[in-house]
Structures are given as structure tokens and as C-alpha cells.
């Protein structure tokens, strides 16, 4: 084997491997952006309610009801298109989604269901005064936290 071939063959294999990883990265970037965006819209609406509950902003029944309805609508979105197998934090970058999601789809689905239930409680409470809203924030935080606990890598 010539020197050139000895160097280029491994280099070619290596670049192929990198290429495959880059391809996986690219293939999933849309899905990852979409699900993180979904989470961000949830956090934005939780923020409207949470800032009222914490006394950072004035309580406003109408705005609270709107935010709670948005959260309910977000719970109804079928996200199967962007929770795609192979897009976990072990395989690709820029995601904190743990492989556990795909190892335990039923558990992940149950946590999503529990979030939907917490939001139903929130919808009933949000327009009903500050105390009712404050009371419903805890169960909501629990529902988000329960899923992040099992299925999201802690922040670094």
C-alpha cells in the first residue's frame, strides 16, 4: 500500500464517520428545535401565570385564563413527529432529551398525560382569583418536574 493510500483510507473512514454524525445532527435539528420550541412556549405561558402568583405582576383574571387555555392547547399537540428515535442526547448534540424517553415510551406518555391533568386543574383555577391560581401552580410545577426528573438531563 502506498503511503498516500495508508493515510487516506483511515482519513476517508474517519470523515465518513464524522459525516454520518453530522448528517444525524442535521437530520434531527428540525425535530429538536420544534420540541424545544414547544417547551419554550409552555414556559412562556407558565411565566405569565407564575409572575402573577409570585406578585411580580398584577393579577389579571383574563390574561391568566388565556395563558391557562394556551397551556391546555399545548397539552393537546401530538408531538410524535419530533420525539424521534435516535435524537437523544447520547447520539446528537444540542438536546437534553435522555434515551430513557425511547426506552420507556409508556412512562413518557404517562408524564405527558399527567401534565394535561394538571393543566385542567389550572384552567379551572386561573380566572378564580390569586389564591386559587397560587394553589394550582404547585401541581403544575410537579407535572413539569416529574417528566424532567426522568427524561431530561440536568443542566450542566
Amino acid at each position: 500500500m502506498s503511503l498516500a493510500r495508508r493515510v487516506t483510507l483511515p482519513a476517508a473512514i474517519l470523515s465518513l464517520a464524522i459525516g454520518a454524525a453530522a448528517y444525524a445532527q442535521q437530520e434531527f435539528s428540525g425535530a429538536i428545535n420544534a420540541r424545544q420550541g414547544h417547551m419554550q412556549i409552555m414556559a412562556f405561558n407558565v411565566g405569565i401565570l407564575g409572575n402573577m402568583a409570585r406578585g411580580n405582576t398584577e393579577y389579571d383574571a383574563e390574561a391568566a385564563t388565556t395563558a391557562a387555555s394556551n397551556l391546555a392547547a399545548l397539552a393537546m399537540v401530538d408531538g410524535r413527529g419530533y420525539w424521534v428515535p435516535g435524537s437523544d442526547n447520547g447520539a446528537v448534540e444540542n438536546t437534553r432529551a435522555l434515551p430513557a424517553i425511547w426506552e420507556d415510551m409508556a412512562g413518557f406518555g404517562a408524564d405527558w398525560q399527567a401534565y394535561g391533568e394538571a393543566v385542567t386543574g389550572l384552567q379551572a383555577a386561573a380566572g378564580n382569583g390569586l389564591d386559587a391560581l397560587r394553589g394550582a401552580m404547585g401541581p403544575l410545577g410537579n407535572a413539569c418536574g416529574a417528566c424532567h426528573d426522568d427524561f431530561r438531563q440536568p443542566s450542566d
Partner: protein
Amino acid sequence: MGRLILSCALAGCLAIGMFWLLTAPERSDAALLSGLEGDARRGEAVFWAGGCASCHAAQEATGDDRLVLSGGRAFASDFGTFIAPNISPHPEAGIGGWSDLAFVDAMRNGVSPDGRHYYPAFPYTAYRLATVQDMLDLRAFIDTLPPSAQPSLPHEVGFPFSIRRLVGVWKRLHMPDGYAVSGPLDPVAERGRYLSEALAHCAECHTPRNRLGGLDRDLWMAGAPNPNGEGRIPGITPDRLSWSEADIAAYLRDGFTPDFDSAGGHMADVIRNLAMLEDADRAAIAAYLKALPESE
């Protein structure tokens, strides 16, 4: 020659004797409890602040099931896997048959009723700083919970860590004799220090450890590698955590960060416990975090 063997044997005996003496379990005197009586109602707050359910309730237990302290949860460590025992008031499977003194010894000295050392996976290094009254209240509360007949499982710990007597050496090195944060504190932060250091054992996760698994008290709450291997547990000293006191207190109640992401990892479970406390107690913990020395 005979003399040499004899003196060697003597030295050996002496060393063993010293080891035995130095690793002897520390027991409390019964006088410690005299005149004190447990109050189950007050004990409930101690229970949630102490986070007992996080380890002694079944894995994934939610709602009222977190009050069934059947044990069974496993904790992997560099030294082996520890399995939390049944501490429900069941007379045989749990601790229903224990005296109050035995309970206080377990909590504050890490010593079992038959005089053996517990492993520090059971955070008695924190509970050691708790008041005797709080421990009796806690016992009274646990007595009101449902008994579970589920037997405790043995730990999966290999030699030499399987020798409990060795824990005596560890205790000599790492049992705290006082608070990590010693400075003068206002009464609110002082309450927060009690809750955080003696009961809620925040440092067990937020402080890095040395090679023997003891907390590095010079880096108190400075953040630590996550024992699960995923990510890091964040530092929460004022130079690392810029949240307002109100934001910290609210996070400990509803689990939302100031930008309304939600807490994950083991913190979500800690918050499920702390959410059961009075607002004033969470505000006290927040004041204590603000009073921590900087870690850099």
C-alpha cells in the same frame, strides 16, 4: 526470638485494640430524652424538611404512597449499592418496636439498635445537628403512618466496605461537630441554616466530595458532579446563583426557575418535600443561601 514474637503479637493486639476503641459506636445517654415528649403534628414538618420519603418510600411513589416508608430504593455509589430499609411503624419489618432512644441514636449518631455503624448513605451526618425534640416529634409522626410488612433488603456492598466497623474510621474523619456556615446570622437565616444543614441536607448533593466520600466543607454548596453521571449539580452560593430571595423561595415551593423552566433531576423530588413546609421556612432557606460564603 520468642520475645520478638511476643512483642509483635502484643503490638498487633494493641493496634487491634486501638482500632476497636477508635471505631467504637457513639451511643446517647437515656438522660438526653428525660422530660421530652414527641408531638406528631410538629413532627410532620420535620419529616418533610428531612426528606425521609425521598429515600424510604417506594421508587416512583406519588401522593399518599409517599407516606408508606417500606424502603427498597437503591443508591449506587463508588462503594457499592445501598438499599434504603423499611422504616414504617411495622413492629417486625419496620421500626415500630424500637425505643425512642434507639431512634435518636440512629438519626444523630448513625448507630443501629444492636450497636453497629450505619453507612453514611443515610445522611445522619446532617441529622446529627438536629434537636432531640425534633427527632422525637419526627418519631411520633412516623408512628402515625401506615405500617408496611415488606422486609428490608441487604445492601450490595463488597469487601472491605462490607465491614461496618470501618465506618467508625470514616465517622472520625467526617462526622461534623457543628454547622459548616459558622458566621453570625440573623434569626431568619439561622432558621434557614438549621433547615438546610440539619434537616434538608442540601449539601449532600450540592457540595463536592473527597475520595473517601466525605463532603469538602471548603467548597460548601459550590456544586458537584452528578452521581448519576449526567450533567452537574449546580452551585448555589451567592456568586453562582444570582436569583432573588423571593425567586429562590418560590422555586422551592412550585419548582419554577425565574424564567419558568421547571426543576428536574433529584431537585424535583426535594421540592415535593419542601412544598409541604410553611412559606416562612422556605423564605428562611432562601435567606440562608444568600448568607453562604462565596465559593471562589
